[in-house]
Every structure is written in structure tokens, then in C-alpha cells.
């Protein structure tokens, strides 16, 4: 997006805005005014949808519901209570927001497919209520709104400029969202919602707020739309084809971009008019919308703006070598940091797991597991595949909820808390298969973690200077500062591991849980990883490490916990664990000898 701004293309929206604003001065052609008015309605709808789909990643086929609720609020308000319909438009926004909030409440535990189904159900249910609640809505007969009172010489101007203002407001809102913590949190959720929670993003509040903003914009647009049409009925307002058109506008222009949804709306609405005028509406409209949506999903999935800007970027970068293969070496640049003080003294348990249980059907992944991690230690958690190490991590980190048992961290019981609360308390973790936000840059990934939640945070700049400095320092520490502007998804596996470590460090955690930090990376990097862990530990950070590389573990960690069949079977110094017959039997094998520890310097 920023790239586009720096190019001459940045002028396009400005020119477009001026043309749109001044159009009624130059032309009194009502056909064009009508088309632009409808384009603006759908542009606002698409911008609203973009907040929840483009940013937060939730696909909604129910956007027409918010439009319809807004329309009925204005219609019924002006008819049954009175006042100018325009005065009811803000109320329509509130109504749209409320419905969005209700949907958000039901959707708290719903994602992906279920969420799409939910939005369809909501739209059709509201349509049915509008049809059946005869006494209020006059059923399928619909209701007529008051005739505008202004002089006919003004044509559609009041509608036109009301929508223009609302559209400008919507675009401004998206622009502001995109540059704040709120937008960054939404995008992190789109990339990986569970991961976003483990780095401290208060996902329920972020999600709900995104829904509500979307609902408010659509509700207000629906209100003006209703007054403009002067007649509303359930089948016309709560029509899934309106949802389709809104989605199509956003997809075609480019989801997740600032101007994409607006561009899409001004392309799709003329097509819609054409279908109605030339093709007799109905079936032609279905064929055009359906056909266009198929083409976009199959051949232009990113939409016009991202595709064009990628092409432009590719042309500019032609011939320049990428950074992917660059080596990570050089001396360790140690960041100056002091992790927050813990309430437990060194050597006392910082993390304590008591009788933890998690069953998947008949599989007892974690079965009455108890252990503790002393403050200031580098503790290892080892055990055979399937012994429940990663499940234990998920239960401690909050990605999964235990069936029974307790988890205590820094003197608090945390097993009922959502993952982001645990992150705020100072519990950071990485994943066995790295889970970075793939479409975000390396630097954005490191800045994304949030150490707390406050309402004020939402409107804070995504990149404050301090945070960017700190993130760069951490990237320098892991040796990845040269990759700051690359997309995280383009990095190699080992590089992703390093970035994920920097990301977790941004939380200033008291305890870092690393899931196989040495798995699948080259020996030089393993050594470096060990060095980094040791450095951080000397600064006061406690570690809990799951790892299969025995020389690495035994040279670095003390104490060592051994898990087998979901239970902690042994605990002690590396020497003791290596010679324990139960551990040899369950995991290491009786021919286990450790010639020379590696990863230790």
C-alpha cells in the first residue's frame, strides 16, 4: 500500500475523489447521478466488509443484513416516530452495529466455514422476521418512506453528498485502522488467529470491534439507501444478491487494500446497471455476478490493486538478487534488556503444572502430568514422539484447554485464562512448525506482539519509533535485521525460527517455551541458538525447551524433565536423567552414549 502511495498511482484516488465530488456541478443527468449514488452505497458496503474479511479474514455472506437493518431503522423511525429520515441515519448505524455485535457473540467460537454459514443464516433469518412481522414492517408489501422535502432543482444532491461524506469517512477509517495496533492485530488474526492470541492480541475484543465497525458503516449506508429508494421491502433489502455484489466489489478491487473495495464498487455497479437495462435483470444479473465471481476467485484471487502493484514491483526489482540465501553469522549483538521481575525467587517454581489431563477421544495425550520449572533455569522437556510434549505446551500456553488439572505461573493460576492473558503475564512460546504471520513483513511480525490490552492501544500507531527500534535490536540479536522488509512466508525454516524467537522476545517474557528450537536447522545455527538461549537466560529469562537433539539439550539444560505416555516419569540433572533406567527404557535406549556435547561453547 505504501509503495503505491509513493508512485504516480497515488494521484488516482485523489483525482477520482475530485471528479466524484464535482460531478453533480457539471452534469444534471439523473442516470449518471443514480449510478454514482448506488456505486457509493456498494463502495461503503465493500469498505465495511473489507474490515472483517480483508483485514480480519472472516468471510461474510450476510452483509446485506446490516444494510437491511439500517434501511428499516430509517424507514420505520421516520414513519412511526417522525423526523427527517436523515436524522435517523446515525441511529441506523447504531442498529447495524448492534446486530453485528449479536452476530459477533454467536461467532465467538466459530471460524472458517461455520462462520460463513452463520452469516447466511443471520441474513435469511432477519429477512424472514421482516416478512413475518407484519404489524411492524408491513410484510412483503414493504413500506414507503416520506418524499424528500427539498426543492426538485437540487435533484439527488442531498443523497449524493451524504453518501460521499460517509464514503470518505469509511475510507479514512480503514486508513486509520490499517496504521494502528488495531489493524495490525486484525491482520495477525487473519494470518493465524491462535498464534495472534499467543503473542498477546486480545482476539475477542479485536474481532468484535471489527464486526461492529463494519455493521455501523453498512447500517448507515443502508439508511441513506432506503431514503433514496423511497421504498423498502424484505426481499429487496435483505437480499443475498446485495451481499454478493458487496463481496464482488471487494474481491475484484483487492481485499485488504485501502482503495480496492472502492474501485471494485465503481466497476461492478455499472455492470449491474447494464444487466438490468440491457439484459432484463433477473437471470442475466445472476449469470453476470456468478460468472464474474467465479472468474475472480479462480484467476484473480488477490484482486486488481494487489495484482497490479505486484507486477509493478516485480518489474522494478527485476535483476536484483534476493536475500533468502544470505547467511546468518557474525558475533551476537546482545540487546540491552531486563525481563520484568517475577514474584518468585530464583530456584522456586515459576511454572507449575499439577495433574494436567487432555484426552482426544481414546488417546490420553497428557495424562495426570505434573512438573515444575524453576525460576532462572533452562529446563528441558524431553520424551519420545507422542509422549505429549507439544500438547503440554498447548495447554500451558492456552492454545488448548485442559480437561483437568491446574497450571500456575508466577504465583497465579492461569489454566482458565485465554492465551493472550497468559502472554500478558509474561509467558511466551514458539511453535514446532513455525507460525509466523506469513503475509506480514519480518519487522511487522516482531512488532505485532502486545504486552497488555487497553482500549487506548487500539488507536496507537502500529509502529511507534520505540517499538521499531526495539524490534530492530531484537532482529539484530537473532541476526535477521537485513531481512526486515521481507515477507515472513518467504524465509527459510531456520530463519523463521529465529524471527519467531525475536517475536516472542518482544513480549518481554519471564518464561519462554521453545518447541524444538534446534529441529530442522543447520548445525551452525544450532550452536548459535544455544548461545542465544544462554545469553537471554543470563539476563534473567527462564526457559522451557522441548527438543530431540540430545547433545543440545544435555549440554544446555538443567533440570531435564522426561515425559512418557503423557506423564512426567523422571526429573533431574542431565547426568541423572541419562542414567535413569526408566528414561533409557522409554526414550533414550540402553545403548545411549553422549560422546561430546554440541551446541555448547
Amino acid at each position: 500500500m505504501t509503495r503505491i502511495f509513493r508512485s504516480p498511482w497515488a494521484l488516482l484516488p485523489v483525482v477520482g475523489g475530485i471528479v466524484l465530488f464535482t460531478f453533480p456541478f457539471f452534469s444534471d443527468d439523473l442516470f449518471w447521478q443514480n449510478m454514482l449514488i448506488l456505486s457509493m452505497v456498494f463502495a461503503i458496503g465493500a469498505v465495511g466488509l473489507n474490515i472483517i474479511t480483508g483485514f480480519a479474514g472472516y468471510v461474510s455472506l450476510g452483509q446485506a443484513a446490516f444494510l437491511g437493518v439500517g434501511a428499516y431503522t430509517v424507514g420505520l423511525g421516520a414513519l412511526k416516530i417522525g423526523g427527517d429520515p436523515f436524522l435517523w441515519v446515525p441511529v441506523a448505524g447504531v442498529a447495524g452495529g448492534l446486530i453485528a455485535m449479536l452476530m459477533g457473540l454467536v461467532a465467538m467460537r466459530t471460524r472458517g466455514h461455520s462462520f460463513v454459514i452463520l452469516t447466511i443464516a443471520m441474513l435469511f433469518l432477519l429477512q424472514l422476521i421482516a416478512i413475518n412481522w407484519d404489524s411492524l414492517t408491513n410484510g412483503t408489501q414493504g413500506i414507503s418512506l416520506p418524499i424528500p422535502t427539498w426543492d426538485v432543482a437540487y435533484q439527488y444532491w442531498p443523497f449524493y453528498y451524504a453518501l460521499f461524506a460517509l464514503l470518505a469517512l469509511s475510507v479514512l477509517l480503514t486508513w486509520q485502522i490499517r496504521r494502528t495496533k488495531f489493524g495490525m492485530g486484525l491482520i495477525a488474526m487473519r494470518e493465524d488467529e491462535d498464534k495472534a492470541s499467543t503473542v498477546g492480541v486480545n482476539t475477542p475484543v479485536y474481532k468484535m470491534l471489527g464486526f461492529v465497525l463494519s455493521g455501523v458503516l453498512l447500517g448507515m449506508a443502508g439508511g441513506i439507501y432506503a431514503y433514496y429508494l423511497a421504498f423498502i421491502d424484505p426481499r429487496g433489502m435483505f437480499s443475498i444478491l446485495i451481499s454478493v455484489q458487496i463481496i464482488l466489489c471487494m474481491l475484484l478491487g483487492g481485499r485488504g487494500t485501502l482503495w480496492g473495495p472502492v474501485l471494485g464498487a465503481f466497476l461492478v455497479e455499472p455492470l449491474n446497471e447494464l444487466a438490468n437495462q440491457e439484459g432484463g435483470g433477473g437471470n442475466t444479473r445472476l449469470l453476470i455476478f456468478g460468472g464474474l465471481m467465479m472468474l475472480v476467485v479462480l484467476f484473480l484471487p488477490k484482486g486488481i490493486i494487489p495484482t497490479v502493484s505486484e507486477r509493478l514491483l516485480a518489474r522494478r526489482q527485476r535483476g536484483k538478487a534476493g536475500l533468502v540465501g544470505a547467511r546468518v553469522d557474525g558475533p551476537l549483538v546482545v540487546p540491552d534488556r531486563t525481563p520484568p521481575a517475577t514474584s518468585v525467587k530464583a530456584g522456586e517454581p515459576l511454572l507449575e503444572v499439577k495433574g494436567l489431563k487432555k484426552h482426544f477421544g481414546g488417546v490420553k495425550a497428557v495424562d495426570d502430568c505434573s512438573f515444575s520449572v524453576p525460576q532462572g533455569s533452562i529446563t528441558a522437556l524431553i520424551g519420545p514422539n507422542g509422549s505429549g510434549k507439544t500438547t503440554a505446551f498447548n495447554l500451558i500456553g492456552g492454545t488448548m484447554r485442559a480437561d483437568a488439572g491446574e497450571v500456575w505461573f508466577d504465583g497465579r493460576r492461569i489454566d482458565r485464562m485465554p492465551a493472550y492473558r497468559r502472554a500478558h503475564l509474561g509467558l511466551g512460546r514458539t511453535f514446532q512448525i513455525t507460525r509466523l504471520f506469513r503475509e506480514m513483513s519480518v519487522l511487522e511480525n516482531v512488532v505485532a506482539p502486545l504486552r497488555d490490552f487497553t482500549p487506548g492501544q487500539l488507536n496507537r500507531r502500529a509502529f511507534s519509533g520505540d517499538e521499531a527500534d526495539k524490534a530492530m535490536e531484537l532482529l539484530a540479536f537473532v541476526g535477521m535485521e537485513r531481512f526486515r522488509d521481507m515477507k515472513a512466508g518467504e524465509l527459510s525454516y531456520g530463519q523463521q525460527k529465529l524471527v519467531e524467537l525475536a517475536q516472542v522476545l518482544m513480549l518481554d517474557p519471564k518464561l519462554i517455551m521453545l518447541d524444538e528450537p534446534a529441529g530442522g536447522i543447520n548445525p551452525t545455527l544450532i550452536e548459535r541458538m544455544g548461545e542465544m538461549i544462554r545469553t537471554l537466560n543470563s539476563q534473567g529469562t527462564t526457559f522451557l525447551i522441548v527438543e530431540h537433539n540430545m547433545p543440545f539439550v544435555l549440554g544446555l539444560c538443567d533440570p531435564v524433565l522426561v515425559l512418557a505416555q503423557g506423564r512426567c516419569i523422571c526429573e533431574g540433572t542431565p547426568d541423572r536423567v541419562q542414567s535413569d533406567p526408566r528414561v533409557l527404557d522409554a526414550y533414550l535406549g540402553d545403548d545411549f552414549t553422549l560422546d561430546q556435547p554440541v551446541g555448547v561453547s
Partner: protein
Amino acid sequence: MTEFLQALILGLLIGGVYALLASGLTLIFGVMNVINVAHGVFIIAAAFITWSLWRATGIDPLASILITTPMMFAVGWVLYVTTVKRIAKAPPSSSVLLTFALALVIEGILGIVWGNTSHAVRTAYFDQSFDLGSIFLPKAAFYGCLVAVAVLAALYVFLNRTWTGRAIRAAAINPQGARLVGVNVAAVAAMTFAVGIAVTGAGGSIVSVLYPFLPGSHYVWISRTLGIIVLGGMGSLPGAVVGALILGVGETMTTTYIGPEWATAVPFVLIFVVLLLRPQGLMGARLREDVAL
């Protein structure tokens, strides 16, 4: 009491038909992780084909499933190979939007071919019923349910007694595992999609006798079938049967005790309640990625 029994029996009869209609949707979701939003429009397409066959030849709509089922199987196969295959691995947003777009296109085609007016197949028995004391069994619903149960039974045998069927079930439970033991998961997906759509052929023929329909009716049917699989647990075939019976009875009870105009609200209310209280559905015991804590 009679009123209650009557509603219950009617509900179970149409529930049996719903079970057949939803089975294809849940099967496709189970194997491919794709919600086929075009499922409803295939049902309506099959109903229109049945109607034309009946008008042209007088063939009984329930007998015409022998034609509509293979026909829809072929349609499913072709669609899979030409379009659905491309988005099999894409995120849910792409597959939902693609199948939804497909539904719109087919709805438009149906409207052009048959017109946007209400159609119904009026067989000799369509308004007759068996009287069992004070309770009556509409013949159309009774025969329809019998045929639906027979097709479901055939589907069950296919899934449990044939190699292809077992491969489909294996791919649904664990695609990686199935691949490891030599199942060609891609070919199985094509088969599943085709079988899932073929079932709408039989289902659509039955629907044509029971309800009037027009191209736009597909929204009613996709809502019903989605409600059923959400309730039963997405991807679960036994869940679809249980969910269908509950929806059938729920609709007739609503018609009897609240009012027929609210019957179509039942699937939506079910979806809300299930997603709020038990997002994995009645029989969806599997831990699903789309269900958060």
C-alpha cells in the same frame, strides 16, 4: 395428542428425505473440507429435470431417479475436474465463494431454461394419503421417504462394502493416513464430489413431488441442508441422518404449534443455537480447526 403424533410422523417422513439431501453435502465436506453452497441448486436442477421427464414421457418422478442420479453424477464429475479441483486446497473463503458463484450461475441458467415460475410434479397420488385411524400418511411423502431410505441404504453399502467407499471414508477421517496406505486421495475427492452431487439427483426427484419449486428455491434447500450438517456435525454421515430427522420434526412441530410461516426459520435457529452451544455439532466429536476453545 393426535395432532402431536401427526406432526411427529410427518416430520420423520420428510426428515428421511432431508437425510438423503444432506448426506451428499456432509460427505463432500468430510472428504474435501469444502462447503458446496451449490448443493441446493443441484437439488432444484434435478427437480426441474424430473419435471421435464414427467411432462414429456409421464414417467413417475420417483422412478426417474434412475435417470437423474447418473446424470447428476456426471455433472458432479465434470464440475470437479473443470473447476472445483482448482480450489480444493484453497482457504475456505475461496471454496465457499466459488461454489456460491456456481450456484448463482446455475440458478440463472435454470431461470432461462424453465422460467422463474413455480413448478410441481402432480402425480396421481400427490394429494392422496393412507389413513391409519385418526392419523394420515400422505402417499407422496411416504413413497418419497421410502425411496430416500433405499438410496441412503445403497450409499451406506457403497461406503462400507466397496473398496472405493472405504477409500472415501478413509480419506475423510485421515487424508495423510489414507495416502500412506495407497489411497489416491485426489481421485477419491473427484469420486466423492460426483457421488455427493449424484445423491442430489435422487433427492431432487423426490423433492419435485413433495414441494413446489422455482430456481430461487435453492436458498431454502441449502439453508435446510446446511442446518442439518451443522446440527449433526459437519462431515458426519450419521450426524446428517440424526440432524435431518430433528429438522424434519422441528419444522412440522413449528408449523403445527407456532405457524407455518415460521417453519423456514427452524434451520436458521438451529444453526445459531448449535454454533453458540456446541460448535462441533451433535456427532462431530473430532477436534476441528474451525472450532476455537
